[in-house]
């Protein structure tokens, strides 16, 4: 069937900010969909609140709305744009939920918008467990025993039928938020209550647990002619019971006979037909009883997903792109396979390698949370690796995570504890399995404890055996064959060096002398049956190399690896832009990355893609093969930056700011001297390599001080310490200081205003791209603070000082490309806190706000172009307010105090655009999922320091018509100021107390500033209750002030939405 001609304008809904369970994979799929549909001549209207996405680049869609992803906001866009169709299947659960809401409230019908890809009925059958269960019964596909409950009473009745252990899955939540596994009635009650609260429609599923069964996923595609193909099978290394996003997964399925696989395939085809997903991709999850092959369906997602992104990268078959084309009427056989060119998309990819995906967690940032893995996803990112054997892929995957060295088996680990660590799934379980092998555990024992399939366990055993063999060798004794065998098994030089007690460089030298280097093979969808025209490559120790590198001028871009808090999509955005810009400049671009979620690992993004770990060894092998003209390290965040010096010393042509300058900026002493020379003030600071030094330095500098390890990202282990006792505690428990890794100590500037400046420089001229003022006060990590562009209420002289310092530093460091400086204004003085001569997290935000593609220009500067060629003013202007607001994963980490601090904990961000501050802040808050009330009751509880300003705040709230309620101290204060305010008990004072009010939904907004040095138990209770019951909770005064402006904007203004193209067109005219 040809492309539909009855529709012309298509609305695509993105997935919003990066949150756990919904990350860059939807930027990848959304971008593919936009590009695919636009190339077919459709006009594309896009809405996504996340400015760090490639899809919101103005050239990806015709009209790009960076607006909150709420039904109201999308309705306004529909009203304005009048699209013919809405594609809801490439924006994750968010887009699907919005599509359902707009269908049900009649908006789509009212404006004649057709849902394409998946119709409402199909979405509902797939999403509504009861309908789904019925549908599965009708086609005789087994499901775990289950039922739906809307109350605790119903739940108690149902558990009699379902039995323990039971899985609780709240309806319509992301990544199973609020769910869990209950082994007894006590846990059951707790989890059911939580799940009912988390579910938007207060419904949760209770399900028979099939924990320990083998888990599989199939990626299925269907076209309008009812052709169905399976793109990829995925087998989970971790058995049922762990969310697939938290499981190590392997493609293709490894332990299924053809009969088992075909049974599953038949079921998948029946299911997609029954559910009625007309076109596009769906993800279907199955469980299989390893003792008898009994098959059950777990769930189906009628849309592209994290797994489909993984499957696309694992096979080379671009699911989202093809899904978009199917949605507009093409059939699978009408779409060519990009990689083979000659064959159509109507086939099932076959692969001739093994793919392993390993999640990356961030539990270290949420120390009070439960690190057990279960049905609720907790990982923040993932790495994928490709090898010719499982062991090779697995070991490449582990090193892609960049964490292995930091894991140590506790020295006092006894057998009981080890067994517990094997039984209870956690982020480290795989390491404990490896460790158990060294203690002589058999595969049978390990299987009994972990339920991991013996085939996987045997592969780990083989790795262990190899380690033992190599451990007996030294760099002098190891034979060429043994070394090559080890490399074929995926051992890194670094690991071999550990095992042979030598240096990584020694292993590398020996390896090169023995002529042992990897070859590069292609991912081609077809197991080499057809010629591949797409250089999508992975390394492996085999005989034949297919890299076919060219002798063109080429630039290699090092990506940012797996997402983590502090290093995510923003850096991928920059890497992609470098590739786009340099392709336009006539360079061949080579991307190196190992994150399957990203746009950078789309084979379309760069001329060549190496799906490889970002380590010195792996990068060097590619450099040796490709011989690039230049290598870019400043866009991928800390990962490539950490390699910069080593690569530079190995002769790699790093372009842009020199690695030496990068090193200088990171080197406390040398950088301090530079600032002194330039007469740029810096807060008093020092560093310490021991506890004693830390005390001395801290007392010299004066408390409070900000302490952190050097060379960290996202404020890892950063703390504000107010006294010596806390400092001792920090030095003893939080960090291990050493001469190589000193602890940095800075004077903490209390109640300072913080500012981030991003700038472009060509070594001579510097263009200030954006001066962003943090809305939260000092002490809160820049990534966790909302920030506003342009700054407001900052004195001209301070702005000028920051501009001057930026230019001076850019020149002094000879910055070529991007740089980011963090300033603080305290006591009427501007201090430099930090200089990062690299792309910062805010580059995409500033680019979207100014309409100037900073990373692209920076890339051009790195290959020798000058700033003057770009016709930019000395400072980019913005003519309205752009606010960036972070989103936090606290709801996934039960037991964690959702309070902001110097350690970054946000996973993503949204942008709000408005003609005034309040309007922009309101949109940002809405975009971040904050449900700001129009009316109702506000609870106030502030620390002594904030008591003065709370009166004014309360007065404004009162004027806006809110009723106020406070605990004793604040209530009296307000009463004395003549502001009416109700009284409520603190948590331990009596009942009903404040948390009772929150739980009975009598409070609509909470303003609670923490009491500084001591965190009181009852405050945590308030904040946790707020989180659980989705009551907005603001923990800073500056945040509260901004929120009041937003509340006012909500009252007073009509929210307006404009596309980026319109905003920037107007700016261009000016």
């Amino acid at each position: 069937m040809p492309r539909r001609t009855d529709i012309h304008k298509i609305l695509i809904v993105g997935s919003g900010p990066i949150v756990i369970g919904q990350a860059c994979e939807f930027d990848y799929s959304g971008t593919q969909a936009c590009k695919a549909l636009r190339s077919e001549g459709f006009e594309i209207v896009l809405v996504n609140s996340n400015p760090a996405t490639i899809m919101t680049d103005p050239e990806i869609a015709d009209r790009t709305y960076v607006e909150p992803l709420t039904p109201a906001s999308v309705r306004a866009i529909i009203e304005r744009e009048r699209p013919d169709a809405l594609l809801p299947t490439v924006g994750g659960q968010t887009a699907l939920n919005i599509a359902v809401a707009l269908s049900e409230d009649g908006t789509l019908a009212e404006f004649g918008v057709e849902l394409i890809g998946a119709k409402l009925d199909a979405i509902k059958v797939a999403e509504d467990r009861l309908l789904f269960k019925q549908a599965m019964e009708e086609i005789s596909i087994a499901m775990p025993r289950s039922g739906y409950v809307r109350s605790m009473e119903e739940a108690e009745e149902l558990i009699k039928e379902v039995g323990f252990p039971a899985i609780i899955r709240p309806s319509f939540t992301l990544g199973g938020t609020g769910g869990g596994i209950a082994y007894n009635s006590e846990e059951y009650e707790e989890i059911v209550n939580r799940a009912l609260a988390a579910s938007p429609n207060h419904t949760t599923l209770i399900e028979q647990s099939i924990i320990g069964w083998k888990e599989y996923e199939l990626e299925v595609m269907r076209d309008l002619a009812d052709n169905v193909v399976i793109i990829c099978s995925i087998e989970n290394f971790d058995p049922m019971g762990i969310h697939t996003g938290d499981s190590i997964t392997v493609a293709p399925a490894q332990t299924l006979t053809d009969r088992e696989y075909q049974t599953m395939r038949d079921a998948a085809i029946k299911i997609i037909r029954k559910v009625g997903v007309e076109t596009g991709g769906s993800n279907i999850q199955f469980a299989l009883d390893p003792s008898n092959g009994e098959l059950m369906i777990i769930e189906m997602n009628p849309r592209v997903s994290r797994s489909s992104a993984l499957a696309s990268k694992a096979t080379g078959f671009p699911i989202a792109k093809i899904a978009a084309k199917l949605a507009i009427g093409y059939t699978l056989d009408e779409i060519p396979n990009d990689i083979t060119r000659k064959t159509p998309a109507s086939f099932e990819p076959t692969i001739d390698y093994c793919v392993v995906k390993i999640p990356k967690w961030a539990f270290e940032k949420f120390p009070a949370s439960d690190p057990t893995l279960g049905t609720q996803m907790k990982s923040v990112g993932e790495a994928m690796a490709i090898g010719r054997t499982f062991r090779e892929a697995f070991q490449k995957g582990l090193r892609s995570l960049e964490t292995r060295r930091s894991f140590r088996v506790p020295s006092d680990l006894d057998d009981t504890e080890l067994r517990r660590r094997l039984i209870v799934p956690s982020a480290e379980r795989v390491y404990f399995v490896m460790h158990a092998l060294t203690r002589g555990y058999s595969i049978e024992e390990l299987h009994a404890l972990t339920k991991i399939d013996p085939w996987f366990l045997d592969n780990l055993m083989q790795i262990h055996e190899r380690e033992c063999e190599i451990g007996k060798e030294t760099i002098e004794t190891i034979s060429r064959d043994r070394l090559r065998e080890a490399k074929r098994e995926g051992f890194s030089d670094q690991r071999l060096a550990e095992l042979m007690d030598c240096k990584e460089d020694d292993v590398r030298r020996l390896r090169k002398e023995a002529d042992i280097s990897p070859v590069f093979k292609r991912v081609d969808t077809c197991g080499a049956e057809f010629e591949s025209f797409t250089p999508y490559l992975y390394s492996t120790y085999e005989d034949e190399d297919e890299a076919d590198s060219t002798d063109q001028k080429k630039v290699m871009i090092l990506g940012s690896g797996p997402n983590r808090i502090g290093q995510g999509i923003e850096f991928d955005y920059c890497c992609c832009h470098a590739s786009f810009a340099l392709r336009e400049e006539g360079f061949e671009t080579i991307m190196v990355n190992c994150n399957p979620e990203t746009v950078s690992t789309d084979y379309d993004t760069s001329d060549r893609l190496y799906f490889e770990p970002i380590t010195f060894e792996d990068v060097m092998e590619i450099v040796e093969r490709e011989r690039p003209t230049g290598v870019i390290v400043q866009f991928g965040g800390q990962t490539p930056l950490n390699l910069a010096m080593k690569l530079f010393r190995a002769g790699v042509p790093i372009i842009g700011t020199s690695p030496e300058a990068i090193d200088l900026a990171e080197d406390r002493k040398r950088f301090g001297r530079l600032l002194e020379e330039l007469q740029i003030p810096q807060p008093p600071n020092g560093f310490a390599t021991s506890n004693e030094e830390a005390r001395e330095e801290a007392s010299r500098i004066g408390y409070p001080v900000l302490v952190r390890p050097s060379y960290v990202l996202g404020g890892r282990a950063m703390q504000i310490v107010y006294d010596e006792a806390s400092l001792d505690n920090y030095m003893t428990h939080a960090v291990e200081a050493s001469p190589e890794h000193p602890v940095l100590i800075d004077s903490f500037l209390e109640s300072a205003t913080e500012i981030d400046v991003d700038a472009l420089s060509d070594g001579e001229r510097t263009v200030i791209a954006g001066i962003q003022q943090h809305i939260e006060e000092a002490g809160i990590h820049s990534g966790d603070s909302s920030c506003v562009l342009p700054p407001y209420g900052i004195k001209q002289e301070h702005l000028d000082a920051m501009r001057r310092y930026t230019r001076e530093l850019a020149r002094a460091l000879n910055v070529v490309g991007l740089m980011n400086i963090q300033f603080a204004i305290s006591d009427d003085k501007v201090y430099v806190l930090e200089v990062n001569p690299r792309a910062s997290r805010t580059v995409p935000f500033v680019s979207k706000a100014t309409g100037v593609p900073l990373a692209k220009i920076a890339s051009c500067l790195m290959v020798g172009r000058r700033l003057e060629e770009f016709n930019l003013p000395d400072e980019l202007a913005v003519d309205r307010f752009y606010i960036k607001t972070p989103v936090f994963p606290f709801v996934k980490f039960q037991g964690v105090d959702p309070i902001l601090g110097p350690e970054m904990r946000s996973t993503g961000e949204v942008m709000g655009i408005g003609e005034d501050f309040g309007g922009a802040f309101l949109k940002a808050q809405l975009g971040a999922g904050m449900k700001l009330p129009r009316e109702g009751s506000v609870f106030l509880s502030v620390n002594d320091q904030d008591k003065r300003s709370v009166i004014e705040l309360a007065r404004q709230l009162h004027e806006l018509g809110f009723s106020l309620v406070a605990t004793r101290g604040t209530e009296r204060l307000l009463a004395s100021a003549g502001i009416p305010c109700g009284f409520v008990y603190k948590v331990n004072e009596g009942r009903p107390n404040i948390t009772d009010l929150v739980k009975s939904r009598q409070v609509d907004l909470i303003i609670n500033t923490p009491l500084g040095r001591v965190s009181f138990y009852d405050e945590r209770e308030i904040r946790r209750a707020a989180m659980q019951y989705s009551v907005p909770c603001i923990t800073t005064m500056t945040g509260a002030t901004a929120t009041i402006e937003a509340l006012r904007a909500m009252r007073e203004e009509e929210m307006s939405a404009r596309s980026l193209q319109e905003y920037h067109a107007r700016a261009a005219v000016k």
Partner: protein
Amino acid sequence: MEAILALEDGRVWRGRAFGARAEVAGEVVFNTAMTGYQEILTDPSYCGQIVTMTYPLIGNYGATEEDVESRRVFVEGFVVREISRVTSNWRAQESLDDYLKRYGIPGISDIDTRSLVRHIRERGSMRGCLSTSSADEKVVIEKARQSPEMVGLDLASVVTCPKVYTWTDAQTSAYGSPALLHEKSAGERFHVVAYDFGLKHNSLRTLASLGCRVTVVPAHTSAEDVAAMKPDGIWLSNGPGDPEPLTEVIANLRRLLGRYPIFGICLGHQLMGLALGGRTYKLPFGHHGGNQPVKELATGRIEITAQNHGFAVDADSLPSDCEVTHINLNDNTVEGLRHRTLPVYSVQYHPEAGPGPHDAAHLFDRFTRMMDRHRQGDMA
């Protein structure tokens, strides 16, 4: 222990030996299926061939008697990147290594199989020799060169059953039984004569589950002998080698055309093409795998099919009373044909799957419907 795989053009791979210790020669082909190695090993169509799996990790789930497709292993030799040293599946009865040893089939592992596949893809399939006994590459290359060419080779006569037998086992209670794919049949409804050119049990199981009593006959059974069995329909199996040398078989088929409903698959389809007056030719490296897209021209419907063939029917050679019904979407070769007036149809692929997708299972139901209609026509 070392093993050598050498091709007739002189390219050599050295790897590890597994399975039996032996030296074998044959045409080297690759199969792109990611599951189903045991069914592939026992598919008689691989007689005379050394098979390479493109998927590198083989043997993970061991071997079980339930999944055999014929009376023994038919591949000459087996080539993989890695053979699993453990067996992980609830149905497994032995390891793949032991299984191959039991049937005397040698294997080579730990070679860059992708380089072998690319070599064949670019230069066409060629003869090879897999040796676990000789260390001299020259000797092994020479043995590859001395093995027979596939073109002109009648292998069906080698693999066909020695005498007539009856098949009734639908394997109804087995895991993944073909009976699950078809409407439950009420008792025995048809008598089918199955020409065995190298048939796979799953075809017989499928026919049995559709209520057919199947009489399997050797490849050279005469049309008269078949007629004497009074079949409701005739089924032509898959099989190895070149169809052209099977002139006697083709002549028998001509005599049966029009008298009985005939359904042919794979080699049976090629023989049908020849019997109807068409020609066959050798493909550069054949189709071997479980992901081949086939389009039914009348409906536009696409089936993902299991295939295993090195020869194909030439579409232009077919007389006007024949119609090409299916094509391969990868290379537009003929995948199915029918006679416009006679109850005769055939497909190049494997609707019985085993291994492979079940998308084409309905072709067997079409056969029973055809037999039903034909019988009613006879009565009328």
